[in-house]
C-alpha cells in the first residue's frame, strides 16, 4: 500500500446532493398551512391562537422530552414535531379546552410517533391518530363546534339533514368546523404551493376526490347533483385531509400504483362514513384506516422494473 496518503476524502458515488432536506420539506409544509391557519384565527377569533400555540409547543416539548429521557438524538430541529402539532391544532374545534390540546400532542408524538421508532416509522398519521383518540375519549368536547354566538350543526350535518347550505360560504370559509378546515380556498392555495414546489403531487388527492365524487353520485342518494356534491367536498375537512394529511409521506404508499390504490380506498371509505354518519371526523377515520392498509397496498401493487420481462415467457421480449 502507498503510505503517503493525503487527506482527500473518499466517498461513494454520487458526489453531489440535491439541496432538499427533510427539514426544508417540513418547513415548506408548515408555510403551506399558513393560509388555512391564519384564516382559522381570523374566522374563529383570538382563542384559536392559544389552541395552536399550545398544541405546537407541547408537540415539540414531548418530542424533546421523550428523546432526552431515552437519550436519543434530539430531532426537534427537523420541524416534523412542529408540523404534527400544527396539523393537530387545525383539526381541533375552535373552542377546545387547552388541556385537551396537551393530551392530543402527547398522544400524537409519544404514542403514535415515538413509540414506533420516531420519524419515518409511524404507520399512521400522528395528528390524525391523536384526533381520533380524542374524539373517542372526549367526544363532547371534540364534536362541539360552537363558537361565540354561533352554535348548531356543521354544514355537513345540515346537508345530511337535507337542509340547504351556502356552498359559496363553505368554499370561502364562513362556516363551522375545525380551525383549519373551514376555508377550502385557503387550503387549496397552500396545496398549490406544495404542488408547485414538487413536495406533493396530485396522485393521492386526485384519486381520492375523484373516487369520492363517483361514490357519492352512486350512493349519496341524490344522484349527480353538483350543488350537493360541492357541499360534500367542501365540508368535513375533506380538502384538508386530501391535500395535507393523506399525502403525509410516512403513512402513505411510496409507489405511484400504491398511491392510486390508496387514494381510491380513501374515497370509498370516506363515502361509506358519510353515508352512515355525518361525523366531522369521517375523513380522519378514513385516512387512518387507509394508513393501516399501506403495507398491504405496497404488496398488492406489483413492481415492474425497467425492461421487465414476464418470467413465464422465459426471456421473451415484450
Amino acid at each position: 500500500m502507498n503510505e503517503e496518503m493525503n487527506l482527500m476524502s473518499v466517498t461513494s458515488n454520487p458526489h453531489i446532493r440535491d439541496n432538499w432536506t427533510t427539514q426544508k420539506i417540513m418547513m415548506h409544509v408548515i408555510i403551506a398551512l399558513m393560509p388555512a391557519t391564519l384564516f382559522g384565527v381570523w374566522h374563529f377569533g383570538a382563542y384559536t391562537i392559544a389552541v395552536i400555540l399550545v398544541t405546537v409547543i407541547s408537540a415539540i416539548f414531548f418530542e424533546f422530552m421523550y428523546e432526552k429521557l431515552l437519550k436519543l438524538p434530539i430531532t426537534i430541529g427537523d420541524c416534523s414535531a412542529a408540523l404534527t402539532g400544527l396539523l393537530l391544532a387545525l383539526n381541533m374545534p375552535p373552542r377546545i379546552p387547552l388541556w385537551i390540546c396537551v393530551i392530543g400532542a402527547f398522544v400524537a408524538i409519544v404514542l403514535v410517533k415515538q413509540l414506533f421508532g420516531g420519524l419515518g416509522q409511524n404507520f399512521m398519521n400522528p395528528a390524525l391518530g391523536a384526533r381520533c383518540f380524542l374524539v373517542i375519549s372526549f367526544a363532547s368536547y371534540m364534536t362541539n363546534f360552537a363558537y361565540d354566538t354561533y352554535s348548531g350543526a356543521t354544514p355537513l350535518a345540515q346537508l345530511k339533514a337535507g337542509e340547504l347550505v351556502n356552498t359559496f360560504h363553505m368554499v370561502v370559509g364562513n362556516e363551522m368546523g375545525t380551525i383549519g378546515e373551514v376555508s377550502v380556498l385557503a387550503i387549496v392555495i397552500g396545496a398549490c404551493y406544495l404542488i408547485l414546489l414538487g413536495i406533493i403531487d396530485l396522485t393521492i388527492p386526485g384519486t381520492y376526490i375523484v373516487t369520492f365524487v363517483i361514490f357519492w353520485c352512486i350512493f349519496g342518494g341524490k344522484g349527480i347533483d353538483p350543488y350537493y356534491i360541492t357541499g360534500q367536498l367542501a365540508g368535513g375537512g375533506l380538502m384538508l385531509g386530501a391535500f395535507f394529511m393523506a399525502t403525509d409521506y410516512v403513512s402513505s404508499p411510496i409507489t405511484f400504483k400504491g398511491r392510486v390504490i390508496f387514494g381510491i380506498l380513501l374515497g370509498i371509505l370516506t363515502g361509506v362514513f358519510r353515508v352512515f354518519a355525518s361525523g366531522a371526523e369521517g375523513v380522519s377515520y378514513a385516512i387512518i384506516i387507509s394508513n393501516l392498509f399501506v403495507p398491504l397496498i405496497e404488496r398488492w401493487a406489483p413492481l415492474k422494473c425497467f425492461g421487465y420481462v414476464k418470467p413465464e415467457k422465459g426471456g421473451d421480449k415484450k
Partner: protein
Amino acid sequence: MSQNTPKFTFDGGIHPGNRNNKDISKDKPIKTVLPKGDLVYPVSQHIGAPAKPVVAVGDKVKTGQLIAEAGGFVSANIYATVSGTVKAIEKHRVPVGDMVLSIIVENDGLYEEVEYPPAKSLDEISKEEIIAAVKNAGIVGMGGAGFPTHVKLSPKDPSKIDYVIANCAECEPYLTSDYRRMMENPELLIGGIKCVLKLFDNAKGIIAIEDNKPDAIELLTKLTKDEPRVDVYALKTKYPQGSERHIIYACTGRAINSKMLPADAGCIVDNCDTLVAINEAVRNNIPLMYRIVTVTGDAIADPRNFKVRCGTNYRELIDEAGGFITEPECVISGGPMMGFSLFDLDVPVTKTSSALLCMKEDEAAHAVETPCINCGRCVEGCPEKLIPSQLATYAEHEDYDAFNNLFGKECIECGSCSYVCPAKRPLAQAIKSMKKLSIGRDRAIAAAEKAKAEAAEAEKKGGEAK
C-alpha cells in the same frame, strides 16, 4: 422487438439543473497535453481478462507500439503513447483505487512514432477487417464502462441490428469532453459511425445528443444532411440519459433489462470518443492512444478540456489546468454522479477516464443521514423504476430474497436516488454493494450446484462402471 418509436427521453431520472456546471469548461477548446513524467499503463483498463505485457524492463518502445496484448477474446491490447524505455512492470494504483500490474514507461521526450500501415478508404475495407482493426487497436467503451468494443461489434446475428447509436448524450454534470469532440472533430465522429454502419447492413445510425447542446445538434445535423443512413436525435436533457439502456429506450422505445444486451434490442451503442477512436483505427490503422479529458471543478484554477495520451499522470493534468485554487476536499475521476473519488492523485489517465473533477467541498461526506421519510423521491428518480428506499433497507439487513424480489440487481448504479434523497441516505452505495454481494452469491450457488451435479454424474458413471 417490434417497437420503433423514439421517445426522446425515459421515465424517472433527475434534473441536476443549475448544478450541471458544464459552462465552466464548455467553451474551452481542446488542448493537447504532452506528458513530462513517466507513463503508467495498467494491464486492466477494460472489462474482461487483463492484457499480457509483451515488453520487458529495459526495452525501448515507440509511440504506437504494442506493449500488452489482449489476454482473451474479452480483453484489449494496450499501446505505448510515447517513446522511451520500459522502466518497470509493477503494481501501480489506478483511478478506481486498486493496485494493478502496470507497465511504466520513462518518456524520452522524442515522441518517435512507429509506422502505421497505410490508410485505406472505407470502401476497400471488409467487415472482417473493420472488426480486426478495432480489436487490434485496443478500443474499449470510453464512456466509462470499458467493455471491449470489438466484442460489442460482433453480435450473434449482425443482420438483426437495426440501429447504431452514437451516445453523445453526455448527461453527467460538469463533463464537456464529448461536447468538445462534437464541436471540434464532428467529421471523425461521423466517420466512426460510418465504419460501424458498414458492419450492419440493415442498420440506421443515430447520433443522440441531449438538447442542452443545441449547437452540437445543429452542427451534426448540418453535416449529416446528405447521409441517408445517419440521423441526429435531440434527447431531453435528463440524467442518466447517457445510460446504455436508457439511450436505447429514448432512441427506439425498446427497453432492455440487465440480462439482455443492446444487441437483443437490435442496437449497438458506442460513446462519442469511442467512435472517434474507431474511425482512427479503421481508416488510419492508428491504435487507441488518446482521449479527451475534462479537468474541472471549483478547486481548479483554469478548467479545461485536454487531449491526453493514456498513461499520463493525473497530477500533470492538474498542473496544466493551473493547479488548485484551494486544496480540494475531494478529487473525482469521472463525473460527479458516477465517478470514483481518488485518495491518491498519483494515478494514470486510462482509456475510460473522462474527467477529473476537483471539488472544494465533498458534499457526500458532509451529508448527515436522517431517517427515511418515505417521500418517494428516490422512486421517482430511479430510471430503473425500482424502490431504492426499500432496496437499501434490505441491503442493510442483507436480505437477499427481498432484495432480488424487488429487482435489486437491475440497478445501474446511477446514483440518482442518493442525489434526490432529502434524508441524505446513501442509497446507491448500499444497493451497489448489495448487488455485488448478491451476484457473487448467485455465482457461488450456481458453482455449487454445478459441482453437485457433476459429482452426481460421476457417481452415476462410477456406479455403472461397477
